[in-house]
């Protein structure tokens, strides 16, 4: 099982869980398993079946854009991090 780290803005879709254990040999397979466990997540992070452009996906500390994209392999010890941009700060501008 590999671990998917759930960012704060998506935790309402995982019942508050900060990480979810999933199976799958690639990022795609791991995310499919994640969506099977938490169906509401699918629409939050995918658009027309593709991962949305505003979500960065890392396997451990590596951005999959610079590896094999969603085909990047994932091992049982690996952590997948879903990272949408966060805005919060001063109410300014």
């Amino acid at each position, binding site marked *: 099982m590999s671990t998917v*780290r759930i*960012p*704060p*803005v*998506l935790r309402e879709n995982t019942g508050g869980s*900060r990480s979810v254990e999933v199976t799958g040999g690639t990022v795609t397979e791991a995310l499919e398993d994640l969506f099977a466990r938490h169906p509401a997540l699918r629409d*939050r992070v995918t658009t027309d079946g593709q991962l*949305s*452009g*505003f*979500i*960065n996906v*890392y396997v451990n*500390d*590596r*951005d999959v*854009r*610079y590896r094999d994209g969603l085909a990047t392999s994932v091992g049982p010890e690996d952590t997948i*991090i879903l*990272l*949408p*941009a*966060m*805005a*919060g*700060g*001063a*109410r*300014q*501008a």
Partner: protein
Amino acid sequence: MTDQPNRTFREVTAAEAVGLAREGYRVIDVREQNEWDAGHVAGATLVPLRELPERIAEVAPDRAAPLLLHCAVGARSGRAAAYLTQLGYTDVVSLKGPIDHWKQQGGPWEEPAQLLSPGQQRRYARQVLIPEIGQEGQRRLLDAKVLLIGAGGLGSPIALYLAASGVGTIGLVDDDVVDESNLQRQVLHGVDRLGMRKVDSAELTLRGLNPETVVTKHVERLMADNVERLIAGYDVIVDGTDNFDTRYVLNDAAVKLRKPVVHGSIYRWDGQVTTFVPFDGPCYRCMYPTQPPAELAPACSVAGVLGVLPGIAGMLQANEVFKLVLGVGETLAGRLLMFDAMGTTFDEVRIWRDPACPACGEGAATAATTPEPANVASAVGA
């Protein structure tokens, strides 16, 4: 070189040495550079003892020339004099006793350039003691101009520490007024400031903390048509805004003007911090090419935020500012640091420059018109 001083050279007292120097003896200081920097005989030549064999022929080609060697107390200059005597120098004397005696005897002395006033030396003593800072680093801080976008949650702790540490100019961009709901985290402000402009409240607080820091108030919102004017005069920009439009606008202008941006964002129990150094590392668009929809990016006023969170993220940002200004250490350029206050964990992921980035990539207009990569240490502080 020998360890046994050879007695064919002469050792002299400070009083004699001052007289000999007046008669035309050439003074050679065999101490180290750092000792020289702390003050030295006026008109002397620095040749550290270990460099003597290599440099003496160039420094004193005439072996009959009268030479007066000195160090701190006379040990190193004794060895140096013995060595020169062996080489065939015929008129070498070594000053015996503390170099302070030279000063007491009225010998010409040059004090080091004073980078800090006595008051500044007292105020900043604890950080001037740090080898990576010292007087020179403190001077850089005093000369630095740092712009904070927002005088709220992140801006508050950052401004407090930058001012306390002697950052010379702090610019604040904020057109908001202090609201009661701000006080849980915006520690620049207080109950007696409700309704006051945040930049005015910030100025009062910062002046009380450090009257030497100049607070420049920009009562406006950062937008595409004023961003370049706002950031142009500053060395480092600190981004603590809460919406993506502003972050992209700031990013593109900062890349164009080659200003490093220290980025912080917070949400409930989580914070993210990184540093964007144009063309040396990725920019904000490299990291997030696409803006998320509004429901995935709620402001603090909607989502809530733990009071200490901007304190923690802000301190990490302030730390980045110090390193950028001082030109020391490793910044977060190319790394996104993620802090989870609920689990008290820090994680980081690597972020890369995107060759296709519309702001700083190979095809970008700013990249094409600006040939040389920015050098942070020279771009700031100096």
